[in-house]
């Protein structure tokens, strides 16, 4: 699971959960692999991200490197900055671990890189 995917996932569909975001992360296995860098794509996706959530997620799994705490001005034209964001969003993969609902503590396992967000009938 990439951190871009994590930035979108919520547990809001659970009964009694009002926001369900952001999901906490416990990680036992992380893999970093090279992905083609497309600066235009990264520049387009930045405004849609919840930046503090991305920052905290990267920090919590020890993959922050030197990502700035806030989005910098004029980021569209800063190739170095976009490269850092690219790395955190797309090159870091959580292989095994779990996501945690911030309101109920319900855990969603991540196995082989895939988070299992399925809910039981009595949780909906």
């Amino acid at each position, binding site marked *: 699971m990439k951190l871009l*995917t994590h930035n979108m996932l919520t547990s*809001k*569909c659970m009964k009694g959960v009002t926001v369900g975001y952001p999901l906490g992360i416990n990680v036992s296995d992380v893999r970093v692999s*090279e992905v083609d860098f497309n600066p235009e794509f990264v520049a387009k996706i930045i405004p849609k991200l919840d930046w503090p959530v991305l920052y905290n997620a990267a920090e919590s799994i020890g993959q922050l490197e030197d990502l700035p705490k806030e989005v910098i001005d004029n980021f569209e034209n800063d190739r170095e900055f976009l490269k850092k964001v690219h790395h955190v969003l*797309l*090159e870091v993969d959580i292989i095994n671990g779990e996501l945690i609902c911030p309101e109920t503590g319900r855990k969603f396992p991540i196995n082989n890189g895939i988070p*299992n*967000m399925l809910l039981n009938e009595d949780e909906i």
Partner: protein
Amino acid sequence: MFPCLKLKYLEERLQCISEFEKPKILLEQYVTPSHLGSHMLYTIQVSQYGDIDGKLVADLGSGCGALSVGAGVLDASLVIGFEIDSDALDIFTENIIDHELTNVDAVQCDVLKHLPNRFDKTFDTVLMNPPFGTKHNAGIDMKFLETALRLSKNSVYSLHKTSTRNHVLKYAESLGAKGEVLAELHYDLPSTYKFHKKHSVDIEVDFYRFII
């Protein structure tokens, strides 16, 4: 690469997709045939619309990942496959590894019930080969279409039975999207299940592009 070579290359890549070991009737698990998947993807990216390269792409009901692998091969920035079934996802993962793709992700969830709203209007392109719907789950492909149109901010590509064309086009319009049939295809379903009497069943399907 010359366009015609690209189509051949795509089809060859999709021929190496591992398939369902024990297809489940309730989930209507059929693999997207390689000649069909490759022509769809070729149209979506190479010959017509350029809707994959550098885009954020979703594959709804991704199954073993034929369309996800194809979109990954065509350089999507990221493909996210959404699938309910663990066995299908095991094969999906195997296919991603076999094809050495690092731009494909997957989430296990019920596409129709709890796909978080944060994904709304996030994807440039949504691809799907949804269940066509049977007696037991009639209209399921329209529920997939509704979700797809919610997630995409640009285009949705999908397959639906030709016999339902008027309904599909009207339904899309009622959701504020414009549908266009790009091609009529023959979906040659191999007799996957025991209850199939014939060796294979030829179903006429339409290949659609919907614009949000």
